Structures are given as structure tokens and as C-alpha cells.
């Protein structure tokens, strides 16, 4: 096992990793920008190194400073968390060259996964279901038109190098296909320096379903059930839950096994997530794989009783998974609300400021993953996630009730600071959300309805 792990990240995930290290008896090293000098992880970790100014490019994304900090402190491994350098094969390679273990997949595997077209190709070969459409880039308008005729409209044209909702165009009628094909290529070239695009069927209102898995270096792979992350605004997840109420046990086993096989087929090691779209007819289609731990991993932890960060560290150290697939039993239901320092009434504009009051909820089956404390200053330099509130209950309805209870006691205030708590409370009270019938277009519709209501009553 590692002696000392450097955490190349900040905020709640840095603290989450440091907690796991302490529980495993591993020393932890925090790195921080001058904006984070008083952060919780700096206070908690065994050592801390100031690596740069607030701008991430010169601190959390500055590879020489992070490698330097690791060498200064003698860390034998680096945990990248999520975001920042977590999916950068070049960084992983440098770690390896410097004799430091990168806690994640091997660089070449990261590269394969990072390229959407390659990933789709490999996973379809491994037996994962894809949406009707192409795997390889579509190079001519005619080709695109033939595919559209074959799979039927609407179709979506996606930049191979795209992501986060950018570089996508939905084609609703045949006439516009040619122009939209060209414009998407142009955008792709401009934004991603790569004009390659592919075409697939467009699902209007799917469920976002993702399978959590961890693979070790001994050919072992385990899936930890799936998460439903359909409550998202502009591709930003707001509420995640596990399990998905739309999968039968058979579907769950089938997609879980396929996901693990797919990962093992490309030599994947570490924690990862396979994202799928689930249509109303129960068809799952592979979208992409995330080669890192994810923000929403706690909901999977709560229904499986497995510590995913500890597993991730274990397998990175060359150990075998501490659990077998048979030992992973799903129980009950878990929900996570992402509490962001954003103003829901002002188009979710990020807010910053000193937290005069910060009183997290407590009590049974209530988990808070957060780096905040009274007096902490929410910085404008980084993402606006200030806390993840996770609850567990025997079933979804009771989990929602418990989440409402927990949100009702969460006190966060400070001059200029707004949070998404009220927005979460309104969603949790929404009949359609409570029914479970929530597709990726739910939030958009929900907000539209709220606007209408306000207009009508106001």
C-alpha cells in the first residue's frame, strides 16, 4: 500500500480523498493555491504545499508545480480527484516517468477512453449497445443523408471531439440535414480543432443512466449498480440517485456485466463510469466512459456499503478489489443534491463570499461531503459546488422525505452568497419528480412551468 498520497485537487473531493487516506493509514499531502490557503483539506491533511496563485492554470493545472510538490514531500502516489488533471493522459504519463503512481487508468487507456469515436468503437466491439447510427466519422453529406434515411429522423450530428453538450446539432427534417451537417463540422473545427462528426439517432427524452465500476490489475472487475442522473440543467447534474427506478434486476445485471467486460476488454484499471441513455422502451445505449471518480459516487456507496475511493486507492496500489461481485448487494435508495453557490433566481449565476453561517444537517442516514465551515470564503476562481448532501432510506419516497428534512435544516448564509437549496426543495416537492418519471428534459420543463406560474400569479 502507498505510504503517502498527494491530492492534486481542491474542495470537497480533496477532503473526501484525504479522509479515505487517513482511514487507510496513508499519509496525505494537500496542494493549494493562495486562494485555498485556509481550506479544510489544508487543515486536515498531514502536509500541505502552496503551489501557485488562484488561477488554476498556474496552480491545480500546473503539472510541474504538482510534480514538484510530490517530490518535495516524497509522495509515492497522486490522486487527481475529478476535473483538473484527472483525465489528462499526459499528466498520468509524467507521473509514471517521475516514478509516482497516478491513481487512475494507464495513460494509453485514458487516451482511448477520451476519444469518443474510439471509445464507442471499442465498446460496441465489446458488446455494449449503441444508438442506431455510425461509430466512424461521417465524411460526406450523402453519407450522412443515407444514415438518416436508414435510422430515421430525428438524428443528432455530434463532433467526435465534442463534449459537455457542445458541438451537437439535432436534425428534425431531411431538408436541413445538409446545411446542419456542414455547420456542425465548421463549429467542431473551430471549437475543437477537429471537424470529424458522427451521426446517430436522437433521443428526445431519455433517462441518463450510468454504471459505476472498479477494475483491478489482476483482471478483476466489479460493478456497483447504476445511478440515474436525469435531473440536469444544461448538462450540469443537479440531483443524482441510485438505483435507477427504470431498470429491472435483469437489465441491471446485464448492463453491469457488459460494462465490466467492456472495461476489462481495453485493460481498464481503477474506478470508472459508463454513461448510457435509456429510452422509454427500456433500451440502453452507451454514450461515453468517464475515466475517473465522479462527483456523484456517494449515492453508489450508500446503496452498496462499499467505499469507492478506498477501492480506487487499493487497486492503484496493485491490490485486488476487496469485494467480489456477489458481495455487492444493492439495498434501499440514495439521493444526492449538489448544493452550489449559485443564484437560482438569477439564471444560476455563481455567487461568492464569506460564509457567515454554515450549519450542515445531521442525524440518521444523512451524509454531507463538503469542504465548507463557518468563515470559509467561497472563491470566485473555482466551480461553485460547496456541498453534496446525500441521504439513504429503505425506498425512494422515504429518501425524498429525508432529503427534504435534511435540506430544511441546512443553514448557509453570507453577504452575497446564494445557494441552490431552495431550487432543490422545489424540485423535491414536484409531483412528477416524486413519481420518478424524470427524463433529461425535466428541469427545463420544470423551470418553464415555474415561470408560467409566476407570470400567472404575479
Amino acid at each position, binding site marked *: 500500500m502507498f505510504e503517502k498520497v498527494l491530492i492534486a485537487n481542491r474542495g470537497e473531493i480533496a477532503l473526501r480523498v484525504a479522509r479515505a487516506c487517513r482511514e487507510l493509514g496513508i499519509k496525505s499531502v494537500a496542494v493549494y493555491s493562495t486562494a485555498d490557503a*485556509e481550506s479544510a483539506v489544508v487543515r486536515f491533511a498531514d502536509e500541505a*504545499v*502552496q503551489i501557485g496563485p488562484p488561477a488554476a492554470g498556474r496552480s491545480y493545472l500546473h503539472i*510541474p*508545480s*504538482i510534480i*514538484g*510538490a510530490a*517530490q518535495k514531500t516524497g509522495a509515492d502516489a497522486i490522486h487527481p480527484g475529478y476535473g483538473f488533471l484527472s483525465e489528462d493522459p499526459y499528466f498520468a504519463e509524467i507521473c509514471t516517468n517521475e516514478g509516482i503512481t497516478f491513481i487512475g487508468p494507464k495513460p494509453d487507456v485514458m487516451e482511448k477512453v477520451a476519444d469518443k469515436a474510439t471509445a464507442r468503437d471499442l465498446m460496441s466491439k465489446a458488446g455494449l449497445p449503441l444508438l442506431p447510427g455510425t461509430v466512424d466519422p461521417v465524411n460526406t453529406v450523402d453519407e450522412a443523408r443515407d444514415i438518416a434515411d436508414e435510422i430515421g429522423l430525428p438524428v443528432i450530428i455530434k463532433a467526435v471531439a465534442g463534449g459537455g453538450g457542445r458541438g451537437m446539432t439535432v436534425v428534425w427534417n431531411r431538408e436541413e440535414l445538409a446545411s446542419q451537417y456542414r455547420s456542425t463540422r465548421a463549429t467542431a473545427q473551430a471549437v475543437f480543432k477537429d471537424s470529424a462528426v458522427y451521426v446517430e439517432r436522437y433521443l428526445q427524452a431519455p433517462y441518463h443512466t450510468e454504471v459505476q465500476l472498479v477494475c483491478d490489475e489482476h483482471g478483476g472487475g466489479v460493478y456497483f449498480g447504476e445511478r440515474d442522473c436525469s435531473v440536469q440543467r444544461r448538462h450540469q447534474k443537479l440531483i443524482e440517485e441510485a438505483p435507477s427506478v427504470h431498470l429491472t434486476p435483469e437489465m441491471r445485471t446485464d448492463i453491469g456485466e457488459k460494462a465490466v467486460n467492456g472495461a476489462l476488454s481495453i485493460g481498464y484499471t481503477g474506478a470508472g463510469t459508463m454513461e448510457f441513455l435509456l429510452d422509454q422502451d427500456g433500451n440502453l445505449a452507451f454514450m461515453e466512459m468517464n475515466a475517473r471518480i465522479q462527483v456523484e459516487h456517494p449515492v453508489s456507496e450508500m446503496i452498496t456499503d462499499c467505499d469507492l475511493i478506498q477501492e480506487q486507492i487499493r487497486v492503484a496500489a496493485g491490490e485486488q478489489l476487496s469485494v467480489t461481485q456477489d458481495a455487492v448487494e444493492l439495498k434501499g435508495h440514495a439521493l444526492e443534491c449538489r448544493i452550489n453557490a449559485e443564484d437560482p433566481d438569477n439564471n444560476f449565476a455563481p455567487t461568492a463570499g464569506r460564509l457567515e453561517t454554515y450549519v450542515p444537517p445531521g442525524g440518521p442516514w444523512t451524509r454531507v461531503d463538503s469542504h465548507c465551515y463557518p468563515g470559509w470564503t467561497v472563491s470566485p476562481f473555482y466551480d461553485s459546488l460547496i456541498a453534496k448532501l446525500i441521504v439513504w432510506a429503505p425506498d425512494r419516497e422515504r429518501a425524498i422525505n429525508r432529503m427534504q428534512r435534511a435540506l430544511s435544516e441546512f443553514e448557509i448564509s453570507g453577504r452575497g452568497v446564494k445557494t441552490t437549496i431552495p431550487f432543490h426543495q422545489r424540485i423535491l416537492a414536484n409531483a412528477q419528480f416524486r413519481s420518478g418519471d424524470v427524463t433529461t428534459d425535466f428541469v427545463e420543463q420544470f423551470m418553464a412551468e415555474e415561470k408560467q406560474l409566476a407570470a400567472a400569479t404575479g
Partner: protein
Amino acid sequence: MSESETSTNPDQEFIRSVWEEARDLIKRLEGSTVQRFSVEAGGTKIEIERAAAGASAPGAGQPVAAASMPAATAEEIAASDDRHPILAPLVGTFYGASQPGAKPFVEEGDFVDEGQTVAIVEAMKLMNHVKAGRSGRVSEILCKDGDWVEFEQPIMYLEATGE
């Protein structure tokens, strides 16, 4: 946000005057056993808090820096004395000379011009030249060859040469 950002120009003068009165109060507190005292009226509150005898509170002796900045940088801290620190530009290894055995860039007592290279901080084989931000006399060199330095860690001090 550091409190200082909440002060806008029209109030700068007011703040400076309060600052003076604050210093007065502090002097008068010395020797008393009061640790904490607070008054509140209207929307305003004044709080006075003192460390237990003997204990040295954070920022002792640096009223300015300690007043507000949660993450006061070395530069600001040093502002309270007459020395000018030269800070490490990034995390890396300190070298006082261009190569082992070579003559050091500067030694204590030397005069340096603004922009003159005074040391190297090496990170991943890259030699980053550290240049003096101003001219002055090298009063103290804080690192020796091979020392690891953090971002903005003072590596040496310059002394103003009375201009």
C-alpha cells in the same frame, strides 16, 4: 472576500481614523485581564478579544496583514517591515548558482539591480531564473542549494538602499 474589499474609497479615510482609535484601545487593554468584550447597538457591533496572557495570537506584531486577509501573501506580511522579500515563482528546487561549483549569482551584502538574476528555481528540469523585483542590498539569503521551495516562499531579502 477579505473585509478590506468591503471598504470603498469614500470610507478609506474613516477606516484609517477608526484604525487609530483601535490602536489606542489596544494599548489601554495591556495589563488588564479582559479577554473578551463586546458592545452592540443599533446595527453596529464592537468586539474586543485578547489572547490569554502569554499566548501569541495569529498575526502578532503585524496589525496590517492580520487585519483582514485570510490568505495574506508573504509580500503583504513583509510590508510591515523595511525588508523586501524575493519570492519563489513556483514550487521547485532552489539553486544559488548557474551550476554546481560555479560562482553564486549573489551573496549576502551584494548590491543587486532590478531585473538581475539572483537564483534559479528548478522544476522538472526547467531552470526558472528568479530576478530581483527592485534594486537593493541582499541582507539575507534564506535557502541553500537543493532546498525545496513553495510558491511565493521568500528565498532572500533585499534591504532598501536609501534612495
